[in-house]
């Protein structure tokens, strides 16, 4: 079902350039993807960044800017269908409420919209890391309802694994570009890339662990919240039950005495159920934790590979 979509190398380079120029550290850059839909298949052909602006710039109107930009691009004959957006990530942290909300609004408007997540750190280490995500139809349903109560999520049967679906990407270039690339490959001297075998990974791991820990803490808090809610709920249920029983007894007594029974409507007013904590955050955190874990796993397995390799080489040389 998830057909891969095409993306031109222009878009990739532009995103990388955008981060290189404006992003730094944990700051996130964002931009708009433009393209067109050809027979159910999405093609992303161009993009432009959101300008960075500070809080003080109250006059700045983002929507206005986008419309302006798109109009201008149309003048130079560029595809102007707004098919999604891109965002950089810091050590793989991107699953958040903000992303969910904006992706929902995109997907709500154009079903094929995607979000491209670009990981500059991994890319800097030598492997381009660009991933496209879409919200699953289930999640779309829930977001449409705007009901994040525990029951609703339970009914929808949604777990953190089913929130986002990754869409495969194919980078497709025009033949001219391919020719150029081949030409360049010929010309370039053999790039020595010692980083590939670099083992000084503790910094990366430390950062990831820190972020992971932070999220685990968040998760703990959410669980505690939920826990108290559950306890309150059961307590109230018990009270309600007791009250009902008492009322029933009273009513039977009254009946035997020939008096009219007491009404029972006020029960819900008396026992207002406690406010259930929204569970969406928990899900998001779980998704994020999962993400970190995948990252760490991938990273460590890679490093282990390198270690074994180094060991083998050493044994061979000695």
């Amino acid at each position, binding site marked *: 079902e998830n057909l891969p979509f095409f993306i031109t190398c222009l878009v990739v380079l532009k995103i990388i350039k955008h981060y290189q120029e404006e992003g730094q550290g944990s700051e996130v850059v964002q931009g708009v993807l433009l393209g067109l839909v050809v027979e159910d298949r999405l093609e992303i052909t161009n993009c432009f960044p959101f300008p960075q602006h500070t809080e003080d710039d109250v006059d700045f109107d983002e929507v206005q800017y986008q419309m302006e930009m798109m109009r201008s691009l149309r003048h130079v004959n560029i595809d102007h269908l707004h098919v999604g957006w891109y965002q950089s990530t810091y050590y793989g942290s991107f699953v958040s409420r903000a992303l969910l909300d904006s992706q929902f609004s995109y997907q709500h408007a154009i079903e094929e919209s995607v979000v491209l997540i670009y990981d500059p750190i991994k890319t800097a280490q030598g492997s381009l890391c660009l991933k496209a995500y879409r919200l699953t139809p289930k999640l779309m349903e829930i977001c449409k309802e705007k009901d994040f109560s525990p029951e609703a999520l339970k009914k929808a049967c949604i777990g953190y694994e089913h929130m986002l679906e990754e869409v495969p990407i194919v980078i497709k270039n025009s033949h001219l570009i391919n020719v150029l690339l081949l030409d360049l490959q010929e010309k370039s001297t053999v790039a020595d890339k010692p980083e590939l075998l670099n083992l000084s990974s*503790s910094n990366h*791991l*430390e950062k990831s*662990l*820190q972020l*992971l*820990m932070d999220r*685990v*803490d968040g*998760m*703990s808090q959410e*669980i*505690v919240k*939920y*826990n108290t809610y*559950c*306890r309150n709920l*059961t307590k109230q249920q018990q009270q309600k039950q007791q009250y009902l029983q008492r009322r029933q007894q009273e009513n039977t007594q009254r009946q035997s005495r020939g008096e009219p029974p007491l009404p029972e409507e006020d029960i819900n007013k008396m026992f207002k159920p406690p406010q259930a904590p929204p569970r969406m955050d928990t899900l998001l955190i779980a998704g994020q934790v999962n993400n970190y874990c995948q990252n*760490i796993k991938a990273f*460590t397995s890679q490093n*282990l590979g390198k*270690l074994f390799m180094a060991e083998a080489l050493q044994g061979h040389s000695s």
Partner: protein
Amino acid sequence: MSRFFATGSDSESEESSSADEITPKATGTTFNKQFEELTNIIKTIRNAMKIRDMSKCLEEFEQLYRAFLKSKTIVDKEGVPQFYIRLLADLEDYLNQLWEDKEGKKKMNKNNAKALSTLRQKIRKYNKDFETEISSYKENPEQSAEEEEKDDIGSASSSKSDDDEGVTASKFLKGAESESEGDEESEDWGSDSVDSGGESEDNEGEAASLAVVFLKKYVAQDGDKQPERKKDDRRKRHKKMEQVDEEADEEGEGEEGGWEKVKGGVPLVKEKPKMFAKGTEINNAVVIKKLNEILQARGKKGTDRSAQIELLHALAGISNENNLGEGILVKIKFNIIASLYDYNTNLAAFMKAEMWKKCLECIDELLDILFENSNMFIGENIAEDSENLAISDQPFRVRGCILTLVERMDEEFTKIMQNTDPHSQEYVDNLKDEGRVCGIIDRLLQYLESKGSTEEVCRVYLRRIMHTYYKFDYKAHRRSLGLQGETKSEQDQEESEGEDSAIIMDRLCKFIYAKDRTDRIRTCAILCHIYHHALHSRWYQARDLMLMSHLQDNIQHADPPVQILYNRTMVQLGICAFRRGMIKDAHNALLDIQSSGRAKELLGQGLLMRNMQERNAEQEKIEKRRQVPFHMHINLELLECVYLVSAMLLEIPYMAAHEFDARRRMISKQFHHQLRVGERQPLLGPPESMREHVVAASKAMKMGDWKTCHSFIINEKMNSKVWDLFPEAQRVREMLVRKIQEESLRTYLFTYSSVYDSISMETLSEMFELELPTVHSIISKMIINEELMASLDQPTQTVVMHRTEPTSLQNMTLQLAEKLGGLVENNERVFDLKQGVYGGYFNRGTRTRPRNLIKDHFQIKINCIINVVFS
């Protein structure tokens, strides 16, 4: 009622109080109180007028105004009192007169002149409200006074019945009774003077003398007051005598005759008071009678207390002259001391130093007598009628408790010290009397050891202990240093003959431990004993005693003074531990006191300002009474310094050792607070206060720089502020240097071990100027305690680091694992709730097995992650 308005406050209150005895009337008392207040204020105003103290006048006038408003309800009912009007009129006249007197005004100082003008304006405005009354008074001042006089005679009964109108029917009967009684009385006193001629003459004389004083005071205003006052006085006197008579009747018919004679023979009071008529045979019975007579007046309102004391003294003189024997003398002495104590009616107020000294002398004399007469028995339990005061073959028996008197004397001494400014010469002078107090207690102790019961001995021992425990025994100290005292003067040598205070303390306390049956005395004795041990650096004895007493468990049930004593003891214990170099013990002992931040309050050395709102005046008074006199204070700066330095010596190495530990706990919050305060300083100058010194030293120690640390802790400033306060200052300083060296070495190793592969012990010993064996032992200890991952290489004398401390990444992984554990547990709880299984996580049955598997699975996963990270 207007009768009362005119009279002075004294007779009025006397009257009402005697009426109160018969039928208590609430309105009557408030009424009297308020008017008494008014008359008192008026009196002060008149005095101030006399000395032209305008500011005082103004102040008092404002007070009067307020007081008048307060009694408004009564005024509404009864009309404006005459004396009030009189004052207003007089004051206005007086002010106008002053105002006119331009030259006098010029002479006035600024404040007074200002007050004069304000007061003048005020009174002008105020008097408008009373215009008619004032003018009527001015027209005919005589008449208005006379009116009162007439009222006075007529209204006694009527006013009574007036008052009783509001009383309910049941009370009415009583009221009626009292009325008739009152009537009787009021009829009585007219003819009374005839009845018991001599006696009332005496009273008359006294009253007249009073009236003279009175006249002097009021001579400008009212001559009319004199007879009125006299009458009242006579009347009250009469009543008193009636009571005396009654009691005398009860006591014995046979002496009645003698009694009459005595009464008859006291004609003149203006001269030196004579007790007995000339020629009266003075014997025991007579003197006792007289004594009783004097004592009857005790505790009554309006009794001149100083006169009473004098009378008693005179009586003592007479009995001495006539050789009536020591029994009676002792009895009188007892009463003199008691009435000296009575002189201040308010328990909270302290005695005047002179009074107290008199009392001291009296007690001394009393003790002299007691020592001279071994066949005398005194005690509280001897009943009044079984006393034997006459000289006879039988031993004297006198009722009275010398111990109580001495105790009271001691308490008064404490009170005097509490209320004297500790920085004045007066305080020093007063403190010199402490020796006399101790002397008296010592003498009493000797006396009671031979005569008293165990309980009494315990009590007097405790007194002795209380005067000993806080004093440092320099003699013993010098002696222990090798008899340096021998070169001193003879007097010193004589002094050093006495027993060591330690031995005395030991003897007294042990007696109390064995014999005391009241818990309080024993507790106090133990605490004092510990304090004394601690003060003299006998740490182990002090500590063992503290631990054996188990006081720490139940001290919170004790009363506040004992708690204060406990706090003082704990603090002293901590300081002692510090002197002996037991830093950890010192810190633990001081932690409670210092962490509260209320050390001053807890030690009873002053009240904290911030509590002012929380407590009312009453509580404050009580708290003030608990304060420890200044000469017993523990230096708070010393205390804090000792605490902070011990905290530094403990905390800095600990911090260095657990730099990455997430679960690191603070040892001392206060110390951290000081560090943070130091860090917050925008500009760090050289340290000024003691705290800043400690903070600066801590920073140096963090870097392992012991020399800087040392120079911050021990320098001239700190010496004069803190260290020189110790009796063995030099030894303490040496100990401190050593500790700083050792702890700096430890800190250095913790902080920089990751930099070294190996380090030679010789270098370390040079760096920290410690002997090689010491360095060796410190490092060995660290290795044994697994604080330092290293081994010692014996041949080369080097420490070889193992580098097995977890890296930061590994630390983090461990933290993560812990957090995940917590997460799982929380999750389990949710699950429990869903399943309806209550109870702990671990005591679940077989039913929950699958979940345990889940958990295990999870655990395995965590372990995997950790393994990967560690590899």
